[in-house]
């Protein structure tokens, strides 16, 4: 192909000019020979031959011209021309490039995150060989340490195995907590994932034995930020939960363990867990599920073989690790559990579990935004191509080739797409950072490596390329399909603009309206759900409450002294200035810990196996008052509830209805099953309103709760949560509270959070979805309205003559406005129709994220449609007003 050849010439310019030179030299020699044959002296003949050929260099250039320069020059010319014509219409260029940049940027940003969280494999050698050991019980991927030791020692199909557990450590020496993200890792952890030390050494399997000395490995990022990357950290100590750990090395950057989105700052060998937790160590605990297990398949061993081996090992593993204090029926169930495995090439990720679906949904939303933007740009170019019909006709009349013209129009599109792509890349860069900040929080920071990778770049290029094709080819093709005569005639007699030509533009607007309605409805549903979650009464008043968790474990107190110490702390807090009320509890609503147990009482027969299960909490006197949870019947706990007195309990309304039927539960008794034994009976002394326990999404029936008094606890634990209701802003109380607790016990560790922040954190995903969907819905709406405005302005401009004639013939201006708005109305009505269908179809996708709204909520759909119609009317009004102001005389004189 000629084009390819010329293109090729560009790259082999050197060889080409050699060719030409050789060819010319040959010609001159032949000519000289001929002259010599005619009798001319040799030297003269050579000169004559050369003279006859003309200027050698000019000749060479001209010959090459045909090959490269003319082509290159004409391409540059096209681009220059395109640039000039784009500069002449800055509004058009800005809108087109802006639309593309927005769409490409949003797509790249979401895709970058999706790629990092879902698609990308772990950056380790042969990630396909990695497997994660799983179980069939409800804890799925989590194991106890005795189970891990059994599996590690029995299996043969994995060449390396490691257990690991995410954790957090306090590095402060008393006072307010300074947390680092930690990872308990078994000996082969680093070897399994091919991690190497940047400084010092990493621990190995040999090191991981019971009774090991406390050592730690720093993550590369933490080493940089907390130690300034100093080489002498090896041999220093780091304080973890008050115990000194010797730093032995630092990991290399690039890989931070198998948990995507979680970057451990400090790694410690699992055997050192006993150093921190001492008597409560989980190493021999048979019912503490805290470890995840990974391994690498041996060469030639398939995942199926690993699974079948694990399934075969399961009975032995479980038999050897039965929790001794479990009830017989639970033990029987335990023995029947089984083991399996799944591929771990993409790592494990809490972020993924939380955001996978949401990200996919957002990907769909931005894909729609991209479609809308493409439609917008296509529309703009279409209008432009039609407006330039005359210019095109003139150029063709003076001999421009059709291909040349197509090329020119295409270079314009190319420039636009390149501008959009570049802008998009910038937006994406900024957008991904904003996204990470959006899904991250203090308690669970999300750390992801989001460098631009080839996949994302390729994706962006594909999007930009497709966009060029979509909007570049249509106008280029249409712009040159017309014959010059026809086009020039059309210009001369443009009385009416037929409905035929511009229907593509109008149908594009219909598509835009439909797509943006779909997005706006989805945004409305998600925002409405968030609003429902925030405004629905959770059974407590969170604003103005400061939460502080106080742990006295390091205070040097004998275990029996914890209770009284906590009572004294509560007393001090109650008397702090600025504190309206204070209380303490074992669990905090919508916190990260839960406590459930089975409830037994006369007259209650469970219908399902989980019917007896309810939430439990242990609270101080005044807890309900501090939380502003209403007492419906009976009384609150008080000083009469002593350890020696009868056990008392308060139930919430849901628990009362579920366990005691309609009758008043006051004075009724129940027992709690613990292992194979039952507790002493508890007597119900009060009923409170329902309060959310684990999440704001919980239904009343799911929030059945029993409250027990701290004052009757015979072996109080070392830590309690305090709820402090402030007179003014809760965060202002932090220093006063620290001081008061410090006076009671210097070594107490404290962690603060406002109740509002904790609730907000629990709604983070909902908030992210609401924010992003509103953003994308807004962008879609804006783009569509720009499209609509463009099309209507254009139509009005084209129909100037017709409108002039109508006005001259006596149509009043109201009628003209009506005529234009009716046009808008038709497009909007059709678009809204399709949009509602689209919203209904996509409603199923958002259903899981809704709260208190159905996917087909008529109010939301109606409001969205009305909003869209109102904005569309606004966008159509300006062109309509312009139409009504057409001066008939001027319009007709233009002919």
């Amino acid at each position, binding site marked *: 192909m000629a084009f390819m050849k010329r293109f090729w010439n560009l790259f082999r310019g050197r060889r080409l000019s050699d060719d030409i030179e050789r060819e010319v030299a040959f010609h001159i020699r032949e000519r000289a020979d001929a002259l010599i044959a005619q009798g001319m002296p040799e030297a003269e003949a050579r000169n004559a031959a050369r003279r006859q050929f003309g200027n050698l260099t000019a000749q060479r250039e001209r010959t090459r011209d*045909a090959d490269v320069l003319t082509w290159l020059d004409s391409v540059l010319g096209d681009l220059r021309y395109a640039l000039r014509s784009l500069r002449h219409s800055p509004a058009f260029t800005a809108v087109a490039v802006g639309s593309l940049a927005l769409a490409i940027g949003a797509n790249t940003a979401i895709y970058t995150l999706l790629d990092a969280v879902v698609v990308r494999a772990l950056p380790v050698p042969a990630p396909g060989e990695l497997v994660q050991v799983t179980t069939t019980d409800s804890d799925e991927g989590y194991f106890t340490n005795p189970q891990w030791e059994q599996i590690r020692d029995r299996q043969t199909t994995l060449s390396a195995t490691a257990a690991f557990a995410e954790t957090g450590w306090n590095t402060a020496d008393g006072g307010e907590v300074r947390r680092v993200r930690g990872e308990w890792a078994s000996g082969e952890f680093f070897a399994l994932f091919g991690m190497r030390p940047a400084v010092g050494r990493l621990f190995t399997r040999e090191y991981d034995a019971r009774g090991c000395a406390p050592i730690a490995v720093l993550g590369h990022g933490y080493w940089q930020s907390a130690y300034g990357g100093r080489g002498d950290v090896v041999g220093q100590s780091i304080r973890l939960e008050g115990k000194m750990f010797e730093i032995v090395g630092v990991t290399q950057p690039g890989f931070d363990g198998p948990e995507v989105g979680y970057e451990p700052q400090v790694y410690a060998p699992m055997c050192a867990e006993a150093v921190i937790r001492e008597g409560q160590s989980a190493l021999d605990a048979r019912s503490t599920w805290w470890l995840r297990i990974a391994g690498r398949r041996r060469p030639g061993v398939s995942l199926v073989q690993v699974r079948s081996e694990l399934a075969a090992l399961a009975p032995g593993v479980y038999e050897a690790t039965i929790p001794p204090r479990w009830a017989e029926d639970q033990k029987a169930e335990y023995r029947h559990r089984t083991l399996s495995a799944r591929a771990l090439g993409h790592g494990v990720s809490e972020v993924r579990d939380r955001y996978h679906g949401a990200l996919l949904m957002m990907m769909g939303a931005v894909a729609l935004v991209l479609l809308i933007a493409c439609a917008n740009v296509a529309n703009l170019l279409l209008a432009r191509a039609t407006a330039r019909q005359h210019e095109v006709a003139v150029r063709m009349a003076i001999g421009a080739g059709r291909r040349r013209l197509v090329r020119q129009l295409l270079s314009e599109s190319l420039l636009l797409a390149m501008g959009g792509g570049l802008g998009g890349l910038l937006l994406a860069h900024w957008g991904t950072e904003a996204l990470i900040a959006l899904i991250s929080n203090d308690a669970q920071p999300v750390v992801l490596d989001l460098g631009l990778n080839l996949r994302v770049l390729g994706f962006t290029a594909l999007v930009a390329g497709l966009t060029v094709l979509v909007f570049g080819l249509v106008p280029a093709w249409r712009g040159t399909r017309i014959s010059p005569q026809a086009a020039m005639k059309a210009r001369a007699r443009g009385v009416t603009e037929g409905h035929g030509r511009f229907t593509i533009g109008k149908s594009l607007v219909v598509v835009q309206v439909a797509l943006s309605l779909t997005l706006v409805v989805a945004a409305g549903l998600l925002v409405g759900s968030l609003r429902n979650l925030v405004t629905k009464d959770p059974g407590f008043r969170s604003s103005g409450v400061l939460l502080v968790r106080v742990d006295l474990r390091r205070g040097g107190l004998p275990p029996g002294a914890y209770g009284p110490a906590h009572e004294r702390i509560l007393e001090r807090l109650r008397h702090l200035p600025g504190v309206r009320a204070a209380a303490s509890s074992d669990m905090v609503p919508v916190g990260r810990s839960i406590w459930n147990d089975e409830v037994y009482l006369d007259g209650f027969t469970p219908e399902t196996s989980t019917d007896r299960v309810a939430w439990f909490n242990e609270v101080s006197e005044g807890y309900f008052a501090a939380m502003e949870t209403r007492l419906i019947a009976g009384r609150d706990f008080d000083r009469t509830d002593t350890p020696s007195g009868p056990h008392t309990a308060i139930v919430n309304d849901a628990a009362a209805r579920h366990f005691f039927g309609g009758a008043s539960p006051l004075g009724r008794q129940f027992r709690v099953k613990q292992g194979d034994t039952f507790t002493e009976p508890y007597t119900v002394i009060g009923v409170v309103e329902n309060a959310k326990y684990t999440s704001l999404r919980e239904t009343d029936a799911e929030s059945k709760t029993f409250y027990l008094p701290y004052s009757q606890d015979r072996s109080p634990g070392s830590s309690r949560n305090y709820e402090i209701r402030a007179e003014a802003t809760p965060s202002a109380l932090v220093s006063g509270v620290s001081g008061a607790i410090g006076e009671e016990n210097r070594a107490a560790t404290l962690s603060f959070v406002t109740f509002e922040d904790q609730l907000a954190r629990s709604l983070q995903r909902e908030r992210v979805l609401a924010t992003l969907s509103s953003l994308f819905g807004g962008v879609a709406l804006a783009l569509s309205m720009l499209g609509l405005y463009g099309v209507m302005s254009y139509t009005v401009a084209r129909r100037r003559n017709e409108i002039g004639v109508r006005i001259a013939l006596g149509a009043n201006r109201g009628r003209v406005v009506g005529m234009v708005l009716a046009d808008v109305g038709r497009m909007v009505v059709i678009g809204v129709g399709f949009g509602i269908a689209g919203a209904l179809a996509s409603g199923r996708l958002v259903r899981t994220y809704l709260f208190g709204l159905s996917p087909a909520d008529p109010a939301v759909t109606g409001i969205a449609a009305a909003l869209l119609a109102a904005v569309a009317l606004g966008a159509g009004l300006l062109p309509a007003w312009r139409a009504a102001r057409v001066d008939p005389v001027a319009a007709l004189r233009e002919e």
Partner: protein
Amino acid sequence: MAPSRHDVLQGTLDLLILRTLAAAGPLHGYAITAHITRVSIELLRVEEGSLYPALHRMEQHGWLRSNWGMTEKNREARFYQITVSGRRRLEQERESWSRLTEGVSRVLRYA
């Protein structure tokens, strides 16, 4: 002075080259000029300055094909050869040329 020889009219050069190659088979550039000069009994002279650009242009259009070979004098030269689409082109050019000359001569005769 010798009677003036006509420089080949721009636009007819393609026709002459195509015809020459169609009749004489693969030739190098010098041989093409020599052939045209000889056959036209030195009435036409091909300007070397236009010959090579024309040859390269025609090669890009796919009317010609070229490769390097050896002449009888054992010199390296680039030989041009007409292609199938070149032959088609030749027919078109020949056709339009005869129409042109017929038109011109009629005008000269009757106008």
